[in-house]
């Protein structure tokens, strides 16, 4: 009886141990993933001219950011109400718009060095990797600024970036709030989504 109880306890302890260690391993993988993206970004961010910076950021965004997922996320509760025709127009426009925002935001860190400092698992599939600006010029406002990366792990284990934030302010969340506000203020779907599409067209045409 005693032995079975010990075996039982050992089993429980082992399961608990596995449960405790798995997320740590998962963390490592996502942290490496983001550090690799940052290393890849570094030469672009160090480029002296904005065109090279912007081109580099666009390439990395194409490669690592799941714009389709983010584009649907930013529609909030309206994501299920967009028509297939609207979606066909909306997604490429969103991608263009959001890429511009990434270019604009990330080029703020031009010439700076970002280093991964840790991560938080909200779940197995939803990981926030924190990075920090190191070696900034003394007295610079950017020194030790924290940049967060929200990483999504698909069912088959593929990692993509779905949002980026600075000091706890997130881009996709801000876009979600803009877009749902535009849709709601223009009579809800489908007209509200058409209004959003028109705004996106106008905005991306300026750039």
């Amino acid at each position, binding site marked *: 009886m005693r032995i079975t109880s010990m075996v039982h306890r050992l089993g429980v302890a082992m399961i608990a141990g596995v449960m405790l260690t798995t997320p740590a391993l998962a963390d490592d993988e996502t942290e490496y993933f983001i550090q690799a993206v940052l290393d890849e970004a570094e030469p672009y961010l160090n480029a002296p001219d904005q065109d090279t910076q912007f081109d580099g950021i666009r390439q990395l965004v194409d490669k690592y950011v799941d714009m*389709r*997922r*983010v584009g*649907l*996320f930013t529609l*909030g509760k309206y*994501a*299920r109400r967009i028509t297939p025709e609207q979606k066909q127009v909306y997604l490429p426009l969103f991608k263009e718009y959001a890429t*511009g*925002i990434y270019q*604009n935001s990330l080029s703020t860190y031009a010439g700076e060095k970002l280093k991964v400092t840790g991560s*938080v698992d*909200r*779940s197995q*599939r*939803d990981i*926030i990797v*924190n990075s920090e600006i190191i070696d900034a010029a003394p007295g610079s406002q950017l020194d030790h600024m*924290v940049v967060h990366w*929200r990483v*999504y792990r*698909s*069912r088959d284990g593929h990692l993509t970036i*779905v949002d980026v934030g600075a*000091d*706890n*302010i*997130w881009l996709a*969340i*801000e876009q*979600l*709030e*803009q*877009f*749902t*506000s*535009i849709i*709601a203020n223009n009579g809800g779907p489908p007209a509200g989504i058409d209004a*959003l599409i028109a*705004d*996106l067209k106008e*905005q991306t045409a300026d750039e």
Partner: protein
Amino acid sequence: MTIKIWTFAALLALTAGAAHAQIADAADAAAFAEELKNDAASDQDVANKDPWEGFNRKMFSVNNAIDGAVLVPAAKAYRATTHKKQRKGLRNLLANARTPAILINDLLQGEFKRAGETASRFVVNTTIGFGGMGDPAERMGIAQHSEDFGQTLAVWGVSSGPYLFMPLLGPSTIRGGVGSIGDTAMDPAIWIRTDAAKYLRYSRAGATGLALREPLIEPLQDIEDNSLDFYASIRSFYMQSRKREIANGRTNFDDLPDIGDFEEFDELE
């Protein structure tokens, strides 16, 4: 003056009373837990936090008109006629003058370590920092932090109430608005009733406006250029950054929208 304090006390009692009543009504623990969950859920839906959107949007455009016609040109002139170091000095000076109010709020929130930092900053910067023009405390490793009565109310559990945008005062919530009245009362200059003190208050208000607006000329223009709905952008940035300040910079990722919100799109084809 008496009227001011009375209004403040009444408002405070009202908001605190409301928070208290909520808890009493939900004496049943399960119901209370449910209420908390609902609060968290509605927190995600910004629309629920901005029931006065129509009014706020009008105030927002009034603000932008004043901003474009008066504040931005004044801030640009201020930038053109002063040196970067002078502007930093003025920002330091104004920040140092706010330190007593920050200290009171640190204490009211039970943040004793931060209160110690605030008090040390005040002493160091007022003495060897030439009355607050310099910030030697920062170099000594005592970082500045902000704190106001709105944040204290939040720590005390007063819910934020609706989002409120006022011309010149910018984005806030009802709790933040009540909080600013509290902060005014914590300001030593408000209690001195002489012409000199009055002059000091007005000129300080003007200087604060300029000193705050000047470094924001480009960032705000940038947000405006890049957003489809400038009002909703500002509201979102405000709400997100406020949450962080109330948590005193302790990062908390719990109340982000769920990844489920991302995940369900796997099935959307």
